[in-house]
């Protein structure tokens, strides 16, 4: 029990919130609503998983919200121009990959701090997206695109299925592959990674590309829901993605990745949001509640940590030697 909690500490706050909602509303526990929550959570969890790698590597990618927009715009306008939908969707992912590659190259080859590099990309890509659309919606009606969120293979909504698959894949990658370990290694001590002969630059570029592709995919999901692309979409999404990762327990300073945590973080955030809507909370109070719940969830973890671990780094906390 305690071990399970240690591995997935968000489970507790999540259960608490769910319990409160189950009692205070009569619609929270309906199948339709739970599906709602899980689909919404899945849509932010998928890019969140990619962002988990970035944070585990000790870096940020702030540009993902703009990638969402540009990818959606490229996909939709290509469909409008007559490109087959699947190809247009692939093109959107390529756009994401290129943005990620640009981030990676600027960060590794030009030595620009990730925070500024990706902030600059955020601004530039948003500019591209707005310049390209000039404020016009790129409206499409594409069954293939719609299938991304609307499809129900095996009766399960597509985003949920994808999120579960991605989580499994991410978990395996983080914990069982060289790439995953190297990402954590770079995040834990970049200099040591270099000295150990790890291809640090290539690892970093790969992670930025991963986030880029995930951003592109996020853009497809949003465009799938809205059946349009637009330069205004995805604003502020970078914070959403980073929030679910941090909430999930992946350290901001890097070195550790909590894949399951990210998934739970996404579910927690979306449960809170959904709950506040079910309770008809006015917008001003919604903000406060989201803020307070964020703090409360982490405070709960913080207090627990404090009782467990009396002294911080680098005092040796270990079983007494035999």
């Amino acid at each position, binding site marked *: 029990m305690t071990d399970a909690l240690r591995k997935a500490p968000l489970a507790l706050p999540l259960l608490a919130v769910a319990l409160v909602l189950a009692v205070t509303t009569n619609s929270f526990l309906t199948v339709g609503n739970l599906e709602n929550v899980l689909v919404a959570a899945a849509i932010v969890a998928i890019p969140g998983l990619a962002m988990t790698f970035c944070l585990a590597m000790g870096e940020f990618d702030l540009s993902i919200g703009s990638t969402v927009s540009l990818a959606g715009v490229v996909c939709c306008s290509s469909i409008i121009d007559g490109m087959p939908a699947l190809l247009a969707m692939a093109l959107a992912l390529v756009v994401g990959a290129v943005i990620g590659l640009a981030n990676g190259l600027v960060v590794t080859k030009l030595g620009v701090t990730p925070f500024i590099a990706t902030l600059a990309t955020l601004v530039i890509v948003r500019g591209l997206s707005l310049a390209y659309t000039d404020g016009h919606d790129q409206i499409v009606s594409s069954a293939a695109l719609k299938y991304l969120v609307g499809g129900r293979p095996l009766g399960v909504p597509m985003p949920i299925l994808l999120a579960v698959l991605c989580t499994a894949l991410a978990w*395996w990658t983080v914990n069982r592959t060289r790439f995953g*370990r190297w990402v954590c290694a770079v995040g834990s001590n970049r200099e040591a990674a270099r000295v*150990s002969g790890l291809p640090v630059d290539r690892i970093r570029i790969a992670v930025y590309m991963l986030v880029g592709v995930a951003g592109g995919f996020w853009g497809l999901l949003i465009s799938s829901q809205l059946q349009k692309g637009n330069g205004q979409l995805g604003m502020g999404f970078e914070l959403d993605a980073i929030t679910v990762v941090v909430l999930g327990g992946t350290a901001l300073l890097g*070195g*550790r990745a909590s894949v399951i945590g990210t998934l739970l973080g996404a579910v927690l955030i979306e449960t809170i949001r959904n709950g506040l809507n079910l309770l008809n909370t006015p917008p001003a109070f919604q903000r406060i509640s989201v803020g307070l719940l964020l703090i409360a969830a982490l405070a709960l973890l913080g207090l627990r940590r404090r009782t467990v671990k*009396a002294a911080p780094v680098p005092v*040796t906390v270990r079983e007494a*030697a035999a």
Partner: protein
Amino acid sequence: MGTDDDQTAVLLQVDRLTVEFPGVRALDDVHFDVRPGEVHALVGENGAGKSTLLKVLGGLHRPSAGEIRLSGSTYRPRRPADALHAGIAVIYQEFNLYPDLTVAENVFSGREPYHPLTRGIDYAQINRRAAELFEVLGVSIDPTATVGTLTVSEQQLVEIAKALSVDGRIIVMDEPTAALSADEVTRLLDVVRRLRSEGRSVVYVSHRLDEVFAVADRVTVLRDGRHVRTAEITATDQEELVRLMVGRDISSVFHREEVQEGALVLELDGVSAGRQLRGISLKVRAGEIVGIGGVAGAGQPELSQVIFGALAVSAGAMTMDGRAYKPKSPADAMAAGVGFLHEDRKAAGILPDLSVRDNLTISVLHRVRAAATRLLSPAAQTAVFADYRKRLAIRTTGPDQLIGQLSGGNQQKVLFGRALAPGGRLLILNEPTRGVDIGAKVEIHHLINEVTADGTAVLMISSDLPELLGVSDRVYVLAAGEIVGHLEGQDRTEENVIACATTGRRIFSEVSAA
């Protein structure tokens, strides 16, 4: 391959190597060579350029001039991976470990084997192989432990295991024993000999000349970034090496001034801290140097941190000058007049982004302020800096140099100066001479002696047995978090310390119990 004997006898040849940093020429026209199957020691004062040379070999620094040949062909590593591919494994003086990853993951980083069936990293294999490496080194470190929770000496052993796990032709070790206990040193030297017998070469850097004479075939002396001499070990002796290193004779005899029994400063009565310390009782008097010995991991850093308020007491009581002493934080302890030197220079010692001057004065900021404005006075700070630079022979380009740019030993001197600066009732020194050169070591011992003359009590933790016994007036021995020995007078012998620390014997001198 060439037929010339002299050519084939050299595996690695360094010629006219020069390395520059802003403001410093760390290596100046240095030559150095390594033969197959030899142990080649590299010695020199702190800042002489030893680590710099090794970093060039490892692909961390690019020389501004010079040439290196490996097995006769040009060797110009552009990055550490190149060195590894060329079969050169380096153990750097400052660890390069991932604190968040496990021991085994650290050891095999970059070379993780995949399991043939699951196609995932074969953890069973790396854990087993790591355990085997530690077995060779004669230590028990859990391969699945997170490295950030290890002691400094355990981390050093992980670094060594990492280098051994690479099948290198040349294994380069930069002060591998600085953090090891006597026992572990013996084992490491055995390992070095075994590597040699396997035909591998070892470049060995150490400030402990007895190790050099115990294991090396040849020795090279660097001074001020220049090559001074390379000699067969049999063709030289300790005195000569010291003279070549420092350019003068050094008497390594430590003379402890007689101190008179002072008042009781610190008393611990049955102090426990979690599972790390159990029922510790000890006393430290004014003007006294009390040593703490024991194998690594017996609870020494925990004991010092409990007294310094960095670790919570779970049972028992402390008194200082007869009054209850319950520091809640190091800040509390410092306010009570306690100074502290941490054993982990890199992780908990240096403030890497700050200058040498700032590192020296950070604990005495109230003393370097203008009285009227309470603003820091750069002049007063520089005065403190100049004083310690002189007393400790700190080699730096000036007060504004970042401490991270100093050689390891010089960083240690700065940290020692920092601990000394506040003065006061009690000085807690963890491994005060770790990594410092022979001359500075003597100097530091003198300084410890000097502060006790002012009535300051010193608690010194050292894994260097000669230092522990030579410098302290009394010695407590720790084992598994308990005090298992208290050695005074005649009883202060290496045999007794080792017996208490490792065999479970308990020896308590009766000379002056309380």
